[in-house]
């Protein structure tokens, strides 16, 4: 079955440092989405990538979709305490449902 692996599982960074989380799928994806979940909260949709090699930016966040459409990354530049939370990727293959990765929990040390 479809699997989406996400690494690292945890990441502690000093405020101001950069952060990257990686997502790898066992199958070619039609699209990939990213979500953020604050501690005690619910997942919130951030962005969707559809095209091979696509790069999208949201302020300090940069999202990439691999050329083979089997991997993706989220990079945060100069982390802030407001970035704390768990970041999930979720991949979709064809008409199948979204399959979530296990998430990367980010802790930002002030």
């Amino acid at each position, binding site marked *: *079955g479809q699997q989406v692996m996400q690494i690292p599982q945890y990441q502690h960074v000093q405020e101001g440092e950069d952060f990257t989380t990686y997502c790898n799928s066992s199958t070619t994806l*039609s699209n990939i989405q990213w979500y953020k979940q604050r501690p005690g909260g*619910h*997942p919130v949709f951030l962005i969707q990538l559809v095209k091979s090699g696509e790069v999208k930016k949201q302020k300090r966040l940069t999202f990439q979709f691999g050329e083979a459409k089997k991997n993706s990354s989220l990079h945060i530049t100069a982390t802030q305490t407001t970035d704390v939370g768990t970041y*999930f990727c979720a991949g979709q293959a064809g008409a199948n449902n*979204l399959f*979530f990765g296990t998430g990367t929990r980010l802790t930002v040390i002030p």
Partner: protein
Amino acid sequence: DAGITQSPRHKVTETGTPVTLRCHQTENHRYMYWYRQDPGHGLRLIHYSYGVKDTDKGEVSDGYSVSRSKTEDFLLTLESATSSQTSVYFCAISDKLRDGYTFGSGTRLTVV
């Protein structure tokens, strides 16, 4: 998020009892989903609906059933709750198959 509510927010129930969780949306979205979230497993799909009375199983559907008699309501039922069903349950909605999902605030269910 505005437009999707889950009830109850918290529930403690005994093993063997039936439990129903409710998801209500005011967005008129076609698709509705039930997920459970457990440490180390991320979000796993239980059941989903693609229209009124149209539902299908997800990857962890054993022990769960769903119903959708109206566009706005999607019910998740645990016929006979077990301790392994202790979890946080999230409902989500989307208008199209490849849209981003909007999640409810979740229901924390404890089965004792």
